[in-house]
Each structure stands twice: as structure tokens, then as C-alpha cells.
């Protein structure tokens, strides 16, 4: 979800016999559910895949602040503004937990952020859609954070220790995001005017499919999934996670009194799951390639924040140097 299409470099899985003794020992450790820690030996592909996935995940948290930041000054009440700011601060925190986990793999934070700015690193496709009305804040919290939770709850069991621990921390905080989002929509549906209710349905219509795309391509279109699953970086496949999300979300949608923009969505009595229509994959790949409605704006905003904050970082270093000289002189 927050990491879609993570390249593993593997064309097919190696058998235990084909592995070097080190690789075999590593794989057996993973199979036995022993967490891998920074100082342990690991295959280069495992390390690189994790750096890609964790940095992508971190970038998503950071870029994810932007669609919401758009509404801080427009929140309808002070209470809503405070809640929104707390949520945005959490997203920043989640980004930082993840960058810190990524650094334990020897990756450099500035270099990875530079890759994002150059368009070489990805972030979740969902954040390239605009947030057009207040109900979008509700729908983002409920659907986008909801999809994130489904993915992240499973990632708490990922094989790399620091990533897994960051996920545990993030999951604890994420449920506030989803509940505050759903409550925004619930209030609008219960107490709102017809126009406000229409805003809720409009937000759902626009964000429903992009939220489902967060889980990434179908399993058979996802060549890297198999290797990530073998390394237990991923614990469930894209399609499994998407189905879990839909099954838990549709009853909430019905409770709101809203509908999904999918005529094929209906409960399958035989399987006990919801069947749903086909995602527009062309749109998914277009957005991922950089051609979504807000891709350029998001990256430009990130770059501007880094560039315009440069003087603050310089001042902090100068201040620290001065303080040190003062202590030494005393």
C-alpha cells in the first residue's frame, strides 16, 4: 500500500540447495520467524529491497501530509483544526520512525530524500489526488488511513526488526486517524445539509478507487511479491490485503448511508467476501509514472520546504558550534 511495486532484483526464487551457506542460514532464520537485526548478515538483495520499501513508505508518510495540510486553515471548527494538526504531526513522526529504521541498513537519509525529489523514488499513488472539499479530510482518514492500517498491521510481523518495531509504534497511532476521519463523515451525514451530504458522497466517489489501488497490482502482475514474501518482508499478498480492506469497509460505507462508485460491488454468499469490479490499472500506472493530477505539485512543495528551510538548519549548526565554543572557553 504505502509501498507499491518494490523491486527485489529477483527473477525467480532460489531453492535452499542453490543458496550459499550464508544465504541458506539466513533463509532458515527467516523461516523460523527469527527477526533479522542490523548487524546480522543479510543478502544484498534483501537489504536493497528493504531500503526501497522503507524509504518509499517513509516518503509516503511525508508527502501524505500535503493533501491534509491544504485544509488546516480551512477546517470548519477549532476542534477539527486541532485534530487535523495532530494527525499531520503523526504523519511526520511516522516518516521519521521509518527513515530512522532505514538508516540502520546503512542508507543515507539525505540521499534517499534526494531520490524522491529527482523522481527516482516512489511514494504511494494515493497522495497524487487532490483534496477538493472538507469531506475529503474525512474520506482520507477513513479510506486512506484505513487501507494503510490493513497493510501495516500485517507488516508488524515483517522479518526486519527495526521495520517491524516502527510498524508497531505506527499502528498504535493510526487508529486515531481512521476514527477521526470516519467521525467527520458521520457528522456530515447525520447533521449536514443536503449539500454537505452530497460532498461526502462526492469525496467517496473520487477516493474509492485510488484507495483500492494503494494495495498495488494483482498478485500475478507483481513479480517482486514472491521474493518479498519468501524473505517475509511482505506477509500477505496485494490481493489478499485488498480483499480484507473491502470486506471490512463496505459495512462502514453502508452505515454512513453512502455508496461506492462500483456497480459490481456485492456480497458473495458463497465465499462470504465482497466481489468488486476491475481497477483502472492504466490510471494506476500513469499516476505512478508521475502523471497523476498532483504529482508535480507534491514534489515541488517538498523541494520548496527543504530549500526554504535551509537557513534554519544552518542556523542550528552555527548555534551548536557557538555553544560548544562557549562551554570549552568556560
Amino acid at each position, binding site marked *: 500500500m504505502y509501498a507499491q511495486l518494490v523491486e527485489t532484483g529477483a527473477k525467480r526464487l532460489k531453492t535452499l540447495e542453490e543458496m550459499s551457506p550464508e544465504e541458506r542460514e539466513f533463509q532458515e532464520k527467516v523461516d523460523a520467524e527469527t527477526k533479522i537485526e542490523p548487524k546480522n548478515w543479510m543478502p544484498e538483495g534483501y537489504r536493497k529491497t528493504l531500503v526501497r520499501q522503507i524509504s518509499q513508505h517513509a516518503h509516503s508518510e511525508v508527502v501524505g501530509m500535503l493533501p491534509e495540510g491544504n485544509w488546516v486553515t480551512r477546517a470548519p471548527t477549532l476542534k477539527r483544526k486541532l485534530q487535523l494538526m495532530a494527525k499531520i504531526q503523526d504523519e511526520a513522526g511516522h516518516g521519521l*520512525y521509518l527513515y530512522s529504521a532505514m538508516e540502520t541498513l546503512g542508507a543515507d537519509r539525505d540521499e534517499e530524500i534526494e531520490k524522491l525529489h529527482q523522481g527516482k523514488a516512489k511514494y504511494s499513488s494515493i497522495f497524487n489526488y487532490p483534496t477538493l472539499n472538507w469531506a475529503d479530510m474525512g474520506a482520507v482518514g477513513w479510506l486512506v488511513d484505513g487501507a494503510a492500517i490493513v497493510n501495516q498491521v500485517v507488516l508488524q510481523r515483517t522479518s526486519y526488526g527495526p521495520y517491524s518495531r516502527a510498524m508497531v*509504534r505506527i499502528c498504535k497511532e493510526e487508529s486515531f486517524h481512521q476514527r477521526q476521519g470516519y467521525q467527520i463523515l458521520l457528522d456530515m451525514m447525520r447533521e449536514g445539509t443536503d449539500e454537505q451530504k452530497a460532498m461526502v458522497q462526492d469525496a467517496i466517489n473520487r477516493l474509492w478507487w485510488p484507495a483500492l489501488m494503494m494495495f498495488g497490482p494483482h498478485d500475478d502482475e507483481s513479480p517482486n511479491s514472491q521474493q518479498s514474501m519468501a524473505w517475509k518482508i511482505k506477509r500477505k499478498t496485494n490481493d489478499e490485503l485488498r480483499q480484507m480492506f473491502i470486506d471490512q469497509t463496505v459495512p462502514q460505507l453502508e452505515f454512513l448511508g453512502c455508496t461506492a462508485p462500483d456497480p459490481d460491488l456485492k456480497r458473495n454468499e458463497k465465499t462470504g467476501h465482497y466481489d468488486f469490479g476491475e481497477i483502472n490499472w492504466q490510471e494506476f500506472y500513469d499516476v505512478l509514472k508521475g502523471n497523476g493530477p498532483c504529482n508535480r505539485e507534491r514534489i515541488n512543495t517538498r523541494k520548496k520546504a527543504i530549500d526554504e528551510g535551509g537557513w534554519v538548519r544552518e542556523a542550528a549548526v552555527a548555534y551548536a558550534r557557538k555553544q*560548544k565554543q562557549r562551554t570549552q572557553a568556560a
Partner: protein
Amino acid sequence: MSEWRLYEVFVRSKHGLNHKHVGSVHASDAEMAMENARDLYTRRSEGVSIWVVPSDTITASASDEKEVLFDPSEDKIYRHASFYELPDEVGHM
């Protein structure tokens, strides 16, 4: 920000408990490390005390030293209370 020193963060969650490692922050000095750690790791009253320690001052055991360091204690089962069996009549000890 990578050029800023890395600090490991330890948080005491409640009075009477140990400080526990929670993650790391970059900062230009220890004071900023403390402020960053406070903002990042204790937004929901997760702690009553914080330590920040420059990461490069920590000496850690290497994973290939595991056997050398920890295996010898495995055959010293007489160091555990459960090694000493006492008659039931003695009661709880």
C-alpha cells in the same frame, strides 16, 4: 540532515521502570536531540524521562560474537533456582 549527529533515544515509560530504546533522531547538538526526541517519541505521554546518547559512542557486541559471549552460560543450569528440587513439605521458597 544526515550530516547532523545521530542520537539513540531511550524512554522511561513510568517511574520505577527502566529506560528502553525506542529509536533515533538526528540533531545538531544534544539539546536539540532532546527536543526532537520529545516531539517524536512522547506525543501521547509515552514517557516520564528521556535519554539521548550519540550513536557513535555506543559499543555493541557483534553478531558473530554471540557464541563466545552467551553460549558459556547455557551449560550452567545450576545458576537457576529451578535446578534445586526441594520436597513439597518445605513449601514455597
